[in-house]
């Protein structure tokens, strides 16, 4: 089980962008970070925002069985 990361360490940039800044409940607080705001972080990392979608597309059809995100 050497691949299990214990959670006492600092949260990685990956998990920050995948969880802390992307998921969790979004309510109409007086101030809420928008998707466009998070895209700015990707730009700061010199990641073309479109490249994330491109990666998905290159991999072909999305996998079945995932929970659909409510829209």
């Amino acid at each position, binding site marked *: 089980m050497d691949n299990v990361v214990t959670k006492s360490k600092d949260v990685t940039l*990956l998990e920050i962008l995948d969880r802390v800044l992307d998921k969790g*409940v979004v309510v109409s607080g*007086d*101030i809420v*970070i928008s998707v466009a705001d998070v895209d700015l*972080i*990707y730009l700061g*990392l010199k990641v073309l925002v479109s490249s994330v979608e491109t990666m*998905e597309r290159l991999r*072909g059809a999305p996998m079945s069985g995932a929970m659909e995100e409510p829209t």
Partner: protein
Amino acid sequence: MSVRNNLGREDNLSMGGEEKELIYLYCVTDKAPKLKEVENFADKLYFIYRQGIYAVVSKVKENEFSEENLKRNLANLDWIKEKANIHEKIIEGVMKYTRVIPFKFGTIFNTEDNLRVMLGEHSEKFKVNLTNLEGKEEWGVKIYCDMERLKGSTIKEEDEILKIDKEINSSSSGKAYFLKKKKEELIKDVLNKTINEYGQKSFETLKGLSIEARINKLLPKEVTERKDDMILNSAFLIDKNKVTEFIQATDDLKTKYNNKGLNFDCTGPWPPYNFCQFAKEKMQNG
């Protein structure tokens, strides 16, 4: 009094000073949170109660977290890392003693009254969600692939590629050029197909041990800070009694696919960021 507006490094949890303060919401729970037990941040945290729901909050400075300042700070990666870590650690601290619904980073209210209104509006949904989360944990599994290793172990076994190799060897240079192009396309297709197959199988196995499962967006190397490519990003809600079995299953997959260049990254338990039932729903006020 000295003006401190321009100092970006202020502690965002400090309560002193003459700055206007905002209310930062970390998580909600339906049992009184043990805030004294939250390491490092106990004295900054307090809760606001409304209709059976406790909201864990702290005050933050307007010079960091007003809409305009927050946007400016989001351009600063060090700032994001520091504050996102605080966000995460506080929720984890509360989560040790009670189930929680985590909020997205940077959910801020101008006044406690505004927050109370929000709690009143959504308290029933929060209660249902919290009840559903009892006895469960969120775990994340990300699968990465060393494409060169996968290529090495896969194309040897593909008849079509072996066939085209023979053709290339016995062709004129002009024809060989086109055959090589064709071969590259073929390899790409084979790799994609293989990655999808391995990813799908692994996901199905882990999904079978979970209560809920979801697939998230793949993230690029600039974010993962790894050399291999992410090929699956998934999150699972697991019965606490099944966590050991789940980790073992991930380990088995890792062993199974190790010589194909796949690597498994299993982390948890996380606050249930992926399993708050209305996570992405729009909930606009009038």
